[in-house]
């Protein structure tokens, strides 16, 4: 039995469709429409907003300052995605080819952080990266050790260790986003690799290709849809990230979400914030459109 035409049982159709459709319209589409309307409005006084159909908010968003922040957000998100891919791919490979006994535990190991509160994970990382944190202490110890070895060999000791500022800069934002988003990347990669026909890899190895070549020429092309899915699942939340740049970034590591937040809290410029929000949404749509174009390529051939 294929899908049923809705006209054949209208009552069931209504019972199944109405609650969800109503919810989506009232509590999703209407709020989004309000944001969209506001983005063409102007501030008149402290709380009054006039919907004048102006494009000034969008014009302001194309100022260099905001274009720069958009560009930087993209760059950070892309870098984070790339690092996650490089770190995550071998992990996904290892999970795929692990023994039946180990695989569930490795998966659980990746999933548990995925389920843990984002704020707690960010906070935990901040503790570790602070000037008094373990990362600095560890590096300090290594530094002292090198210094000591140098004196043993009769060289000048290194200057004393100065704690490195690991927090509140761009490095911290990238590091934090990689930490938070790594499980997002590994899980879809694993799902794609798990579906792979292993005899193809074996054939490639039998025919004399090395492991690296097999991975690049056989595994990666076959797992491409999963890789693209993983990239999107990491890139989209990274682009709209608010918490990590807010807590771990410095004054110059603002991302687009932080600018939007400021329009609604401190700057109190709702129309401009609404315009920025919609520009971010359009950017997401563009990314997804690119992804679906990629999907279609094999079908055309």
């Amino acid at each position, binding site marked *: 039995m294929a899908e049923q*035409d809705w006209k054949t049982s209208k009552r069931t159709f209504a019972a199944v469709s109405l609650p969800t459709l109503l919810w989506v319209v009232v509590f*999703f589409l209407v709020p989004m429409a309000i944001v969209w309307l506001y983005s063409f409005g102007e501030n008149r006084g402290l709380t009054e907003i006039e919907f004048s159909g102006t494009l000034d908010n969008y014009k302001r968003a194309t100022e260099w300052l905001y274009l720069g922040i958009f560009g930087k957000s993209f760059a950070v998100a892309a870098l984070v995605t790339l690092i996650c891919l490089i770190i995550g791919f071998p992990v996904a490979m290892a999970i795929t080819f692990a023994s039946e006994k180990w695989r569930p535990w490795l998966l659980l190991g990746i999933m548990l952080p995925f389920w843990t509160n984002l704020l707690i994970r960010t906070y935990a990382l901040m503790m570790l990266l602070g000037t008094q944190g373990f990362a600095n202490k560890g590096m300090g110890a290594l530094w002292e050790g090198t210094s000591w070895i140098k004196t043993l060999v009769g060289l000048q000791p290194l200057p004393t260790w100065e704690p490195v500022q690991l927090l509140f800069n761009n490095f911290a934002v990238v590091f934090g986003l990689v930490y938070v988003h790594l499980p997002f990347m590994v899980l879809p990669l694993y*799902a794609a690799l798990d579906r792979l026909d292993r005899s193809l890899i074996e054939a490639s190895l039998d025919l004399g290709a090395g492991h690296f070549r097999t991975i690049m020429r056989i595994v990666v092309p076959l797992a491409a849809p999963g890789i693209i899915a993983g990239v999107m699942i990491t890139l989209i939340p990274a682009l709209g990230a608010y918490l990590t740049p807010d807590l771990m970034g410095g004054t110059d590591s603002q991302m687009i*979400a932080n600018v939007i937040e400021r329009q609604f809290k401190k700057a109190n410029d709702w129309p401009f914030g609404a315009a920025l929000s919609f520009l971010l949404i359009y950017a997401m749509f563009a990314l997804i459109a690119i992804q679906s174009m990629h999907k279609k390529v094999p079908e055309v051939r």
Partner: protein
Amino acid sequence: MALFARAPVAPLEYSRTLWMRLWVGAVMVFLYAPLVVLMIFSFNDSKRNVVWRGFTTKYYEKALGNDQLVEALINSLTIAALATLASLVLGTLAAVLLWRFRFPWKGAIDGTISLPIIVPEICLGVAFLMFFAAVGWPTDLVWPFNLGAITIAHITFCFPFVTMVVRSRLASFNREQEEAAKDLGASEAQVFRDVLIPHIKPALVAGALLSFTLSLDDFVITYFTSGPDTITFPVKVYSMVRFSVTPEVNAASTLLIILTVILTFIALKAQGVKAIAETH
């Protein structure tokens, strides 16, 4: 131990090569070290989170004695429970709708239902802030009705995940079972209750846990929708982290991590790791 197994490494046993093991081990350390340090330091007898000064549970007493923090935690759990229940109903209905019927505008409706997953959190938060301001949503209701705005926002971004999970489970449903039940005289409602629901039960468990954790986890959307008197746990922890880093936050975080682990193990008992992994 498998680590020193004598059988030679077969070509495809990537996970048995040394460098792969080191890589996976390093990633696990990277993922878990911060959390473990956080949990250890919640027992540290020192105001600052730096040097170990002996074991104490006084920060747990302090965290549990902090009325605002406890209230925030209760709020969060209430919202998560309500949002999960509603998301299960809405999400399952949407999944059945998209699976079972053919109707005009299906593609557009399908896309719109999954849209809340794609729209960035910050935009959704902004939208709810504006929406509740525009409709003049009352902010002075008594508990638990004052959580209404946040709960509504959470349902909106949780239920599409339930739809996604249930839909992929429905794909494996044999429609002949439904027909057989109907031939034997079952009504529409009976088929739903006795045939369809048992089949999608694993997806319902997974969907429920997913929406519960998503709701409990959410900071950004809640930050925009919460009024002055409705604080949730992440919002409270955020303000605590912003102003000072205290072991009290560690203690509260540790409690939430333990809760997450317990929930995960319940999910494991219900389904097994593999089934859960496939739902992501």
